[in-house]
Structure formats: C-alpha cells, structure tokens
C-alpha cells in the first residue's frame, strides 16, 4: 500500500501572524514556520495505518516556497519513507484551485492508494484543497475524519459534521482529510532522526508535473489591517446596561 500525506508549513499560531498588505498573501517571513498541527495528526494517522499494513510506503508531500527541509526532516524522522517538495517561483500566491491542481498532478504520479490531508490549515482555513484533489483524481473523499481504520481495500471512519457525526466508508484509492480528534503526533526516535538523513527528498518544479490548471483564478484586491484594539464603550450598570448591550448586539447582528 502506498500512502501520500500532504503537509503544509504555516506560521506558528503562537506568534503574531501577518498578511503582506501589498499582496494579500501570508507574510511568511514575520513568523516561525511549523508543520501545521492538523498535518502532524494526518502524519500520525497515516503512519499508524502503514504500521498495520503489509509493505506500506509513506510519502510526505508539500508544496511551498523556499526552505521546508526542517519540516520534511521531522516527517521523515517520524517514519515517512520519502519526501516530495513541489517548489516553483511561478506558484507564488497560488489559490486553492491551482494548489489542488498541482498537488493532484504530483499525487497522480505517485499512484497512491490513500491520500491523507488535514481538514483545514490554521492559516488559510479554507478547507477546500483535499476535496478539490479528490475531484481532480476522480476519487472518493472522506472529509473531517476521525477513528480511521483501513480494512483490506476499504477505509472507514467517523466524520464530524455540523451538529453530529457520520459513519462513512470508501473504497481505495481514496482521499481523506483528518480532524482534530486524531491522536497527537509521535515524537521522532533517535533512530528515526538519524535515519531521516538518508531518506530521499525529491524536489519538483511545475515543469516536472502534468498540471491542468483551472481557467478561473482568485485574486486579492485589497488587504487592510485591523487597527490595534482599543477600548470601546464601557457603561456602569444602572439597571439599563443589559438592555443597552442587547441593542449593541442586535445592531451589530450578533444575535
């Protein structure tokens, strides 16, 4: 069984995250890049599935500008067998549609049985790319999945949906996106860290892939920074404060 795990490097949520106001893109220089936590859970889930399968191979894949070697090294140290880094200056500012088209082309070349992704990144929070990749590949997609079990040629799990849960399954090959109920990532062992140095990391440019780019593209028209938060209205309760607050919530459409 071959498994591809998609990984996104994002600004650390513990730092101050910024947008570049001239492009509207994430300002990746202003904060420390880390593997998005949900992708660590995807890695853990994929490695757990791989351990219980015979002859399983796990490939970690990322599309990112610049240096992602530390993040890939961590994934390899956790137990992935190899890494693919899609890196091309012409992909700067790629929207969800183009990103999915490029990753789908790279996944297709891997001939994977299972693709693991996080359900949404902490920076973009779009939650679109896994479903888009599934559509490109003509595969079923189980989104926002937990309790993941692979049984022969079927993957099963429980989706988190608004107001409940849904037990679902799909035949392999399939794309799944994991939710936060999946276990935390394992710590790389010393042996894993040493072994990671010898594992292959392939860097691909756009020209190496057979990409069918979408015609429609999104463009950011403007980006504005919210001014530093300052104190608003403060009233001392004289018996009418609750009514004033209710009016405030209604006029701001918050109830």
């Amino acid at each position, binding site marked *: 069984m071959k498994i591809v795990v998609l990984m996104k490097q994002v600004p650390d949520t513990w730092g101050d995250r910024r947008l570049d106001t001239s492009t509207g893109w994430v300002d990746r220089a202003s904060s420390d890049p880390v593997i998005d936590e949900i992708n660590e859970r995807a890695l853990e889930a994929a490695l757990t599935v791989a351990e219980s399968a015979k002859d399983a191979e796990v490939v970690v894949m990322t599309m990112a500008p610049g240096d992602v070697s530390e993040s890939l090294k961590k994934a390899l140290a956790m137990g992935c067998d190899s890494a693919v880094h899609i890196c091309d200056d012409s992909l700067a500012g790629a929207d969800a549609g183009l990103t999915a088209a490029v990753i789908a082309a790279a996944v297709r070349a891997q001939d994977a049985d299972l693709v693991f992704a996080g359900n949404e990144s902490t920076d973009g929070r779009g939650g679109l790319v896994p479903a888009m990749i599934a559509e490109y590949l003509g595969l079923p997609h189980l989104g926002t999945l937990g309790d993941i079990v692979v049984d022969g040629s079927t993957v099963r799990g429980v989706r988190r949906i608004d*107001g409940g849960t849904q037990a679902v399954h799909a035949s392999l090959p399939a794309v799944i996106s994991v939710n936060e109920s999946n276990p935390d990532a394992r710590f790389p062992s010393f042996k894993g860290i040493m072994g990671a140095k010898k594992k292959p990391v392939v860097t691909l440019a756009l020209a190496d892939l057979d990409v069918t780019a979408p015609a*429609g593209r999104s463009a950011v028209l*403007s980006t504005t920074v919210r001014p530093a938060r300052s104190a608003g209205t403060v009233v001392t309760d004289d018996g009418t404060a609750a*009514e004033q607050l209710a009016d405030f919530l209604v006029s701001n459409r918050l109830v």
Partner: protein
Amino acid sequence: MTTVLALVELTESGALASGAASTLAAAAKIGNPIAIVVASPGKGKNVAADLGALGAAQVVVAESSTVATALVTPSVDALDAAIDAHKADAVFLPNSGDGREIAGRLAVRRRTTVLVDAVDVAKGKNVLIATHSVFGGGFTTTSEITGGIPIVTVRQGAAADRPVAGKPTVSTVAVESTSSSGVIDSTETLASDSTRPELRGAERVVSGGRGLGSAEKFALVEQLADTLGAAVGASRAAVDAGFVAPSLQVGQTGVTVSPQLYVALGISGAIQHRAGMQTADTIVAINKDPDAAIFQVSDFGIVGDVFTVVPQLIAAIEAKR
C-alpha cells in the same frame, strides 16, 4: 439580470440548516437568487415557503436517490447541472463542512476556484467581490475570481441585509449522480445537551472567570451561551478553581479562539487570557471591577454584577427576537 444559485442545506430532520439565511442574503445582493435544495425524492418541497421568507425568488428541488448515502457528490452534480440549466453567473454555498467540500469539487469541475468564507459580498466587474476576515479579524481582504464562474462560500451568520420575502416558484428536477464518492453508513445527531458548538472554531464564545464563584454558578455562563448559540469557554483562573474542565480553557496555554463574538463574564483579562481571544471580531465584557484589564480590549463593557446583568441580558435578547 444576474442569476445566482444558492445551495441550501437541510438538517437530518429535513428543516433548513442554519447557513441558509446568510447564503441567500449574500446571493440576493448580487442577483436573482435561485435556491437549490438537494433532497431524497418527495422530500425538500416543504422548505419552499421558508426559502421564500429568506428571499429566494425561485426554488429548485433537485431530487437524488443517493443523497442519503453518497457523500457530498449529489449536491455537486445538482449544482453543476443547475449552472447550465439556469445560465447562472455565480454560485453561493454555506461555509459549512459539506458546503466547502461541495464548492471545492464544483470548482474543479467548472475549471474555476472558490472565494471561501465570505463575510460580505458586493457587485463587481467580474460579477462580484467578496470580503473576508483573516486571522481572526486582524486583517480584512477583498477578492474576486477572474476567468471563471465565481463560487463563494458564505460564513454562517455573516452580516448581510435580509432580502425581501416573497412567494417563490417551485420546480423539481432529477439528479443523475455517477460520481465516485464516499458512502454514508449512518448519521448521528448529537443529543440536545451537547449541540453546543465546539470551542475551537466556534463563531460565538461565552467564557466565565473566577468571578462566577463556583462550579454551580458557572451554569450562568452556559445559559447565556445557549441563548446566543455559543460555545462555552473559561479563563485559567476558573479552570484552576475547578469550575470547569481544562479543555474549556481559553488563553495562551489553552485554546486560542477567534470568534465573531466573545463574551467575557467575570474575567479580569490577564495577558494569558487575552492572548487567546483578543482577535475576536467583537468583545463584550461584564465585570464588577472597573479597572479590569478586559475593558481595555472590549468593544462593549459593563461594570456590574454578572448575576444581575446576565439574566436581564438573556431576557432582553429573547424579547428582541
């Protein structure tokens, strides 16, 4: 006239899902909204009147025999067909879990992309411009799609004027679905006491602090949360005092939230706590200490007793509905 499609989702019991109003309201700002309801044969027509009240000019019930078992794809097929049938200029969907997956698949099929989690929309030269609130409201961006039909997911509860209610025309079409899809084995709706939204990612949060005094009195926080449809959170002080479970802690060492509305009850607003919530779009605080740091970051603050103000607030909100 610009024609726009608005996908509306149904709950397990067949009623309109909560994202329907904001999706239709956004669609109506751009053009003539056609509500698309994807349902099992014979079901779905009963929400037509409700959709009219929300501003739908036309309701199309797309009947699919696989909607209960095939994950997401029947809605993709229905919208794909409806774009051609109605010569639609844009498609709106709720920014729900399923809504985003449907939007993503539809965009790939139509060789376009998605403007995700719009909090507002306006007419533009490329049909429309969407407004987004990024990094918990720290930044506001506007975006458009060029070269393809715009597909927009609308934040549930996003601010938009309610369109004029009307009596929509209702038609039914059959959806042929042959897409490769996941299979739904069963769906479980959470019991009413746990339908409260999850703290992480919640659009509204009501948190309580040490000022609540005890675990029993913390119920006041839950009552206001349920009135607002909000998740429940707590300060570290309330967690350390044993009022609630650690999983509800908002702050640097707990959960970081960026909701549209954050209500802090009896919370002093230590930096530990502020680090986890100060990117909320709107912050409301009630605290009896006029010098509490929470008032420095709140949009609306009340210096008063939570046990007096909150019950009045619940009554006032309910009276305004």
